[in-house]
């Protein structure tokens, strides 16, 4: 079985305030997979994703995305941060936030054109948010905010999605919309890497798994990786019903 590796991480070590958070991690993400990253609180899940994307300083290690350094393929990678990482009181509309997904294609100084606006509107439509396009973002619910973030990633026309807990604090309907989106993206050849916290939905939503607790405990296809031993080793044993 030969599967292409789309994200390759070697010997990644990262620290926060001189305290090591991740030690010497090797990660391989399979192309066209829906990969979940799980681990207990403080396991370094967000840190790992930020390290891969070059958003946080790494002490050592090597990262390659689509066979190139991350900086070369930024257009192809859409990062969806935790939705509480931004100021939702910022004076702007849902459509305007989605339009930010086009910025990477515009480069410095240039303003979005009509074509970009159309892409942004289509992205909102794909995620069922077209009725909210002119809504001030502070007036959106948690689920709607998450959908706006996903729409921004759609507007970016990326090949790989990195999502930091997209299902945290969202309603059931939004959860379904997001998972449907991940499955549809997969059928279009795209890859998703998602930090997830609900072990009960893991096997249903994803097909590949990375288990992390400061070190990689195990990684691979869901069936062979989601084992009681692995979860116990990651201090996640008690979580599974």
């Amino acid at each position, binding site marked *: 079985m030969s599967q292409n590796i789309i994200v390759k991480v070697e010997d990644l070590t990262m620290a926060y305030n001189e305290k090591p958070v991740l030690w010497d991690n090797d990660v391989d993400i399979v192309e066209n997979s829906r990969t979940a990253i799980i681990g207990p609180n403080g396991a370094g899940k967000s840190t790992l994703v930020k390290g891969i994307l070059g958003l946080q300083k790494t002490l050592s290690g090597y990262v390659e995305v689509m066979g190139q350094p991350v900086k070369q393929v930024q*257009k192809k990678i859409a*990062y969806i*941060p935790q939705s509480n990482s*931004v*100021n939702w009181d910022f*004076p*702007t509309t849902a459509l305007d936030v989605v339009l*930010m997904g086009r910025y*990477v294609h515009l480069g410095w*100084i240039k303003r979005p054109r009509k074509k970009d606006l159309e892409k942004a509107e289509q992205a909102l439509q794909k995620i069922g948010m077209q009725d909210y396009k002119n809504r001030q973002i502070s007036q959106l619910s948690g689920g709607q905010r998450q959908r706006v973030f996903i729409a921004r990633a759609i507007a970016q026309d990326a090949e790989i999605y990195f999502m930091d807990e997209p299902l945290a604090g969202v309603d059931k309907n939004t959860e379904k919309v997001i998972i449907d989106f991940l499955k549809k993206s997969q059928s279009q050849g795209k890859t998703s890497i998602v930090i997830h916290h609900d072990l009960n939905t893991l096997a249903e939503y994803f097909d590949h798994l990375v288990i992390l607790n400061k070190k990689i405990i195990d990684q691979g296809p869901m069936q062979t990786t989601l084992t009681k031993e692995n979860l116990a080793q990651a201090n996640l044993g008690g979580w599974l019903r």
Partner: protein
Amino acid sequence: MDLSILTSYTFLVVCFGTMILASVAGMIGAVTVLKGQSLIGDAIGHSSYPGVIIAFMIGMALDPVLLLIGATLSGTLAFVLVQFIDVNSKLNLDAILATVLSAFFGLGMVLKSYIQGHPIYVKVPQGGLQNYIFGQAAFIRLVDVQLIFVVAIPSIFLLILFYKEFKLFVFDEIYAKSIGLSPSMMYIIMVLMIMGVIATGLKFVGAILISSFLIVPAITAMQWSNRFNRVLLIAAGVGSFSSFIGTYLSSVYAGMSTGPSIILAMSCIAFLSMIIGPHGLIASKIRRREFLADN
């Protein structure tokens, strides 16, 4: 009401200067306030004062350009110090800002009282130094207004040019970084613009109150619009209108400092807006009631 003052040369020069300064400060201030960094301006403002005095002590003259350079250098030094402490300690940023700004401003006050009556400086007129604390329209010269232009025009130019980048930087810094837009670079541009506004505005408004030029128009504008571009424009408008009112009052009534008069006008508009603005208290109360009735 004395309207003849409106056509006097001095009034026009000062009024024009403060209006331009306040509109630029309003726009840059809106960026810093939305970024949650409103106290940076306060710290740099206070910290620029000792630079003014030291520049005077070195140059032995009230040369506006020299004093401006002094103000910029000491404001920059304070900013670098704040960043250094922030990175290397576990203290909260607001505590660091408060400590640095009071230390610098205290140094300025001590130096000022030291040179008063000191034999070396007694021959040089120092009355103007007082104006760098509260601002005084009567001491404004054309060169001071020209200096404002030197700073204001490039600042507006940068804001328009990098409008989209500023928006993303303020709203979602981490996403900005993920698409290759360096937040540190945006931060540096932002601080440079703040520095420029403060250095050229000191003589008009004074070290203590200059930061209100950055903050008050911004929070006023946020009561009136929820679009970033409109917030910037309204902030500019509020700033320049208040400057007109304040400069008029301080020109008509002898002894009224320019800075405090402008800030007073600004604050009145701000409080009024917080109450009656479409995003102010009353409107929010009504919206909440409607929301509860609907659900």
